[in-house]
C-alpha cells in the first residue's frame, strides 16, 4: 500500500485498493467520494490488475470458498481471489466501473462472518437512530427514502448492518438507486419497517419468524456454499430476534396530520 492506494471505508470494512492505472484511482475517488478513507491497520489490501479472459459466463458474480481461508469472486466482468486471513487479494478487471459489483459480492461474503449483513433496504438516520425499509426491487424503498426531508438518507438501495457492542448499527453504502446518497457514519438501529404498498398508512408489528422470513429475502449474498450461508443465517437470526420488525403499509401521500417519522416512532 503506497501512493497508488486509494482507501475506502464502507461501514466497518476498510479496503485499500492498490491500482497502477491512474484512471482506476480517479474513478474510485470520484465514484466513492463520501467513503474515501486513509488506509489504516486492519484494512483489506486489494490490488487491481488488468482482466484476462472472462472466468465465468454469468454477469452476476458468484463467491466460492477455497481451502486455506481464501475465496474467489467470479463474474464475466471480473475475477478476484482473496485471503480472509491475510486480508488481501487481487481483482482482475477491465474497467473500474465494475468495482461496485465486486464490492457488493465481497461485503456480502465477509460481513456475515463478522455479525453483519448487506441488505436490500432504504434507510434514514433521524435523531441519531436508523430506520430501515428492507425490500426487493419495486417495494417502494426510494419512495420512502424521499418521505422524510428532515432525516439523513443512509441509502435508497443497499444498507449495511452489523452487531456491535450495545446492539445493531446501520450504515449507508455507496450503492444507491434513484437518489445520489450514502451516509458513511453509523446510527443505532431503531427498527426494520418492511414496506407494503397500500391506500392507507398502517404499522403492524411482525413476529420474529415473520420478520426473519422477510429479512432473509432482502439479504444480499452471492455466496454458493453452506459455511457462508450458515454464517449468514446466524447473523440474520440474531438481527430478527433483537430488532423490532414491522410491516409498514404506505400510500403515495404522506400520512394525514403527521409526518412519517411520527408514525414510525
Amino acid at each position: 500500500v503506497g501512493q497508488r492506494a486509494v482507501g475506502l471505508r464502507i461501514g466497518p470494512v476498510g479496503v485499500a485498493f492498490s491500482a497502477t492505472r491512474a484512471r482506476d484511482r480517479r474513478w474510485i475517488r470520484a465514484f466513492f467520494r463520501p467513503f474515501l478513507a486513509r488506509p489504516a491497520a486492519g484494512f483489506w489490501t486489494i490490488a487491481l490488475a488488468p482482466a484476462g479472459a472472462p472466468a465465468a459466463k454469468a454477469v452476476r458474480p458468484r463467491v466460492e470458498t477455497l481451502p486455506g481461508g481464501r475465496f474467489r469472486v467470479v463474474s464475466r466482468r471480473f475475477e478476484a481471489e482473496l485471503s480472509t486471513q491475510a486480508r488481501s487479494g487481487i481483482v482482475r478487471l477491465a474497467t473500474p466501473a465494475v468495482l461496485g459489483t465486486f464490492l457488493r459480492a465481497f461485503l456480502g461474503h465477509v460481513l456475515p462472518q463478522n455479525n453483519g449483513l448487506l441488505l436490500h433496504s432504504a434507510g434514514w438516520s433521524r435523531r441519531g437512530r436508523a430506520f430501515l425499509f428492507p425490500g426487493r426491487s419495486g417495494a417502494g424503498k426510494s419512495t420512502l427514502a424521499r418521505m422524510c426531508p428532515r432525516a439523513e438518507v443512509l441509502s435508497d438501495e443497499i444498507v449495511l448492518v452489523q452487531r456491535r457492542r450495545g446492539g445493531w448499527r446501520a450504515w449507508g453504502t455507496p450503492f444507491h438507486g434513484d437518489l445520489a446518497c450514502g451516509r458513511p457514519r453509523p446510527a443505532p438501529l431503531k427498527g426494520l419497517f418492511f414496506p407494503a404498498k397500500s391506500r392507507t398508512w398502517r404499522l403492524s408489528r411482525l413476529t420474529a419468524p415473520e420478520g426473519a422470513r422477510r429479512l432473509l429475502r432482502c439479504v444480499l449474498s452471492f455466496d454458493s456454499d453452506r459455511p457462508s450461508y450458515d454464517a449468514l443465517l446466524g447473523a440474520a437470526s440474531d438481527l430478527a430476534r433483537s430488532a423490532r420488525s414491522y410491516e409498514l403499509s404506505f400510500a403515495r401521500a404522506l400520512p394525514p396530520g403527521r409526518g412519517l417519522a411520527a408514525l414510525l416512532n
Partner: protein
Amino acid sequence: MSETRYRHARRLAQRRIAGELFVVDPAHRCLHQPQGAGDTFWDWLGDGASVPELVERAAEEFDAPRAQLEKDVRKFVRELLRKKLLEAAS
C-alpha cells in the same frame, strides 16, 4: 423408494429462528420452510430415515389413519427429492 434411506442434502444451511425452520439451498439461492407436520418429518430425516421408518414414527406421533400418514409422508419426500433437498444416506 420404499427401502431407500434419505437425509438432508449436505450442501444445505439451516437454522431455527424463534422456533421456525429456515432452510437455504446455496446452489439455487432458495429459501425453504417445511410447515406443519413437514417440519417434524424434516427433523426426523436429519439422521437419515426411509419412508417406512418415517411412516412408523408418524403413526406413533400423530393421531391420524395410517394410510393417510403414508400418503402424506410419500408426498412430502417426493417433493423434497424433486427440489433436491434430500440425498440417499449411505
